[in-house]
């Protein structure tokens, strides 16, 4: 049994929508173990993105507890949570979320630059990362000069620049064609199996979820199903 990198204990998160209060995540308890690939599935509005945000420290719980990398996320200050994200967590988003004014290399180097690492060093590391993603010839391109698949690979490189043990991916293939989507999923799987990183991915696509070795299905903010699949072979 490997140790847990994330533990949720009765974690609850509510939102106000107009006058109504919606419980997006309803007293979920679970643990994510180091080096695993967890896929979170569910219909639209099931609470899967909110769960991801709670697990990653982008949101804090209204009730219950989230332990992230050994820290009680609810007790950390905004600054400490920010630093935790910057140094130990990588994010991959559906819409890539690259800054349009920066080049591919600068986008990748963003976490290092924010951590005030020397610019030259940060950019050279970013170039290396991009090269491993097969984007060596795109380092100086701006996002609007890249294809969807390329943009997502840049986003993955950015997520990895700090060599984080934990990666969160929110619908990483949602905006890609099937070929590019599969490339990204294989890359994620590779990061788990070869590099031992922990991956938590939100998706509504069962084929994508099959890359995980555990699939958690949500319904109305609660865990409906939590099964270990072993994942697809790579």
């Amino acid at each position, binding site marked *: 049994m490997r140790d847990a990198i994330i533990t949720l204990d009765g974690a609850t998160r509510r939102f106000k929508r107009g006058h109504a209060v919606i419980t997006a995540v309803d007293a979920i308890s679970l643990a994510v173990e180091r080096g695993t690939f967890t896929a979170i599935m569910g219909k639209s509005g099931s609470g899967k993105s909110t769960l991801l945000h709670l697990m990653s420290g982008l949101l804090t719980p209204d009730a219950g507890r989230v332990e992230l990398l050994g820290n009680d996320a609810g007790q950390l200050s*905004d600054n400490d949570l920010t630093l935790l*994200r910057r140094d130990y967590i990588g*994010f991959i988003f559906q819409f890539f*979320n*690259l*800054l*349009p004014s920066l080049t591919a290399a600068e986008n990748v180097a963003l976490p290092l630059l*924010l951590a*005030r690492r020397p610019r030259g060093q940060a950019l050279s590391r970013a170039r290396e990362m991009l090269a491993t993603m097969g984007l060596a010839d795109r380092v100086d391109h701006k996002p609007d000069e890249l294809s969807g698949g390329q943009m997502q690979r840049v986003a993955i490189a950015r997520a990895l620049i700090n060599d984080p043990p934990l990666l969160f991916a929110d619908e990483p293939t949602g905006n890609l064609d099937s070929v590019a989507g599969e490339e990204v999923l294989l890359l994620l799987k590779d990061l788990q199996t070869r590099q031992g990183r922990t991956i938590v991915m939100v998706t509504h696509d069962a084929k994508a979820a099959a890359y995980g070795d555990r699939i958690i299905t949500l319904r109305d903010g609660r865990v409906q199903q939590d099964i270990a699949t072993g994942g697809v072979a790579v």
Partner: protein
Amino acid sequence: MNGLYTSLSRTYLLAKKRRTAMTVIGIALGVTMVTAVALTTAALVANYRSVLEGIGGRAELQVTSIGGLGFPAAIRDEVAVVPGVRAAVPAVSSGAPVLAGERKAAASFYGILPDQEALVRDYRITDGRLPLAAGELAITDELAERLSAGPGDTVQLLSTAGFAPFTVVGVFRAQGTVRGTLGPFGVLPLAEAQRIFGRPGKLDTVDLLLEPQAKRAEVKARVEQVLAGRARAGTPADRARDMDSLLDSLIFALGIAGSISLFSGGFIIYTNVGMGVTERRRELSVLRALGMRRGEVVRLVLGEAALMGAAGAAIGLLLGYGLAVGMVEQLTRQFLAIYGIEAAGARLGPANIAAGLAVGIGVAVFAAWGPSRETVAISPVEAMRQGELTRPEERHGLRRALIGGAITMLAGAGIIAVWTWGDLSSPLTRQIGGGLLMAFLLGIVVLMPVLLPLLNRWLLRPLAQAMFGFTGRLATDNLMRHPRRTAATASALMVSLTFMVAMGGFAAAQRATLEDWFRQTVGWDLLVSSSYELIGAQVEMDPAFVEDLRAVSGVRIASPQRFSRIIMGDGAPAFLQVFDHTLLPMYSSPPLDQGDWQEGVQRLQAGGAVMISTPLADRLGLGMGDELELLTPSGPQRFRIVGIQKELAPFGGTVHLDRRDYVTYWNDQTVTVVALVTEDGADPAAVQAEIMRRYGAERNLTVQTNQGYWDAMMERVAGFYRLMDGLIWVSILVSGLAIANTLFSGLLERRREFGILRATGARRAETMRVVVGEALSTGAVGGLFGLGAGLLMFLLMVQSSQQFNGTAVDLRFPWVATLTALGVALILAPMVGLLPARWAARMDVVEALRYE
């Protein structure tokens, strides 16, 4: 369909309250300034014209003095017999303080012949009758109310020999073709007015009524022949010319200040409306996809802009009216009273309302036109695609550079041409110069988006990176994504700062120049005048009083001085200064631009000589040793020019004359002020107190110390600049709003980017730094261009100060104005950025990441 429009617009405008409010405020501020300036200008002009028309009554021609000095009364009999003249009605006028018990007022008084007066004017007597005998006076109902006096009461009227008692015999309405200016006035028998105002045997005006068949031009020519330069003939409206140049300068300055604010307000509107349209591109595209035609989308957007424009204009009209009321009062009190003009309240008429609405709605619709066309030009499918929501900016860099460069260069060349060869004392030339200046700034505005990337590469980015590290660089890069929007925002600040540097620098240079001149020239310890503080109602003093003052213990020199506006041979006014040159050199040695003071004084004492100021010499094309012809009540006289002086007051030129010549040719012994030099060891304050004790109440005296006089003079100068400063700070406020507005709009647009930054590890402080960095960079761009243009304008103003406002100003680097402008650019701008920065830092990261 209309129901749909209304519903869509209402939903959008209410959902985007902040942006709607900002747009409305931007429009309101612009309209406020334009309305305030228009109403103030109209009030000044209308008052002045109505004063002239009131004075004129039914007179078709008017004989007036060639200064405020009167002309021989015999002239009236001479013109009365000119063929074509049916009647010649004489009058004498003066402003004077009047007392009734404890109550005191300043008013204008007219000496009239009641039986003849009825020919040219109607008096609506409400109580009593017109004055007929010595010691009788009739006053307007307004003055009666102020003094709380009516028929039978005795009032004290200041004469050249002190207060004199008069009995009020009548009260009349100040309406119709009565004599008088706006404000309170009274009439008394002509002979009495001549006696008490020091005009024995003299008149100030003769109103002429013509025979029915007579041609005005012909009669005027015949009258002028008779006058032979001792007085002038003209229509009542001709007198407007004297004051027109003064009003023109004022109106010009007001107009420039109003344009700056409209300029800045225009940018806010442009940015907001433009961004609003961009933000709604998807919604508008859905409408297009569902069947709304291009024209209908454009109409929807323009309709919303017009709605915001109308709301802003309504607020602006109200605020503008309030501001105009304040400005008119301030102008009257601080500035125009010196010239005897009193402006009544500002009035908001239908034409102003229409103009305000047209400006507000027009600018808003104009700003929305481009973006709305751009939106409908893109296919709905393209616009509905997920992605960045920013408006693609045009890529016509070369075309823009060419157009901007051409405007800047042409306007620049025009400015140099006007300043080098133009006659800046002419209002038309000044208006052209002002227009060129605005065109020059507009050229820079057009050019700025092209210059920005260069500026960013060489200055902004390195600077921001050095100051804020990576976040600073991110800030400048963000700005460069929308050079046109950044340029528009920075331009608003640039225009305000240009005028801040130029006007502030000029005011400081003028003050310093005046101070130098004052220290060198004004050697007296005390200055005595009657009713000095009621400057519009000053009464001359009789010469015997000078001897009385000389006899006061502690007084070493009592030097009489006489000042008056006169009309020169070219028909334009000048300022006559008369001194006793046996006394003047004992306490003053003013610097001369040409000639030697000591030698000049000797020549003046000998008679037949004058010194004139440099602007007058330039205006008349005269130099040292030339002869100057002065129109005197004894006819034209020629004087040798023995010195050319610096000009420090906006009188359009001064003539410096010896008292003996003045008494001889003007036949006038009265004194405007008496300069006193105290004995060594005597305390000027004690002497001042003694004079006030002996004569203060009797003669309504004001005795000013050297320092007091300087302070009062500075206060008058400052009064004008305070108004300008106020207008400039309003425009700075508008540009500050423009910066905050652009930042807010930019943040809304890039909300997701800030979410990414926060998600990838930017702390709140770092997020704030990005936004403050954007504000600082915008401020730096505006400051840089504003400082450059401002210094250029300052230089032009100083160089042309002599023609521009009749005062030669020495060139001094405007440190204070420059540092203030830099402060505004580099401190105020980031401060303005703090609010949006806090908002950005507190943004919900998850919400921001979801933001489309």
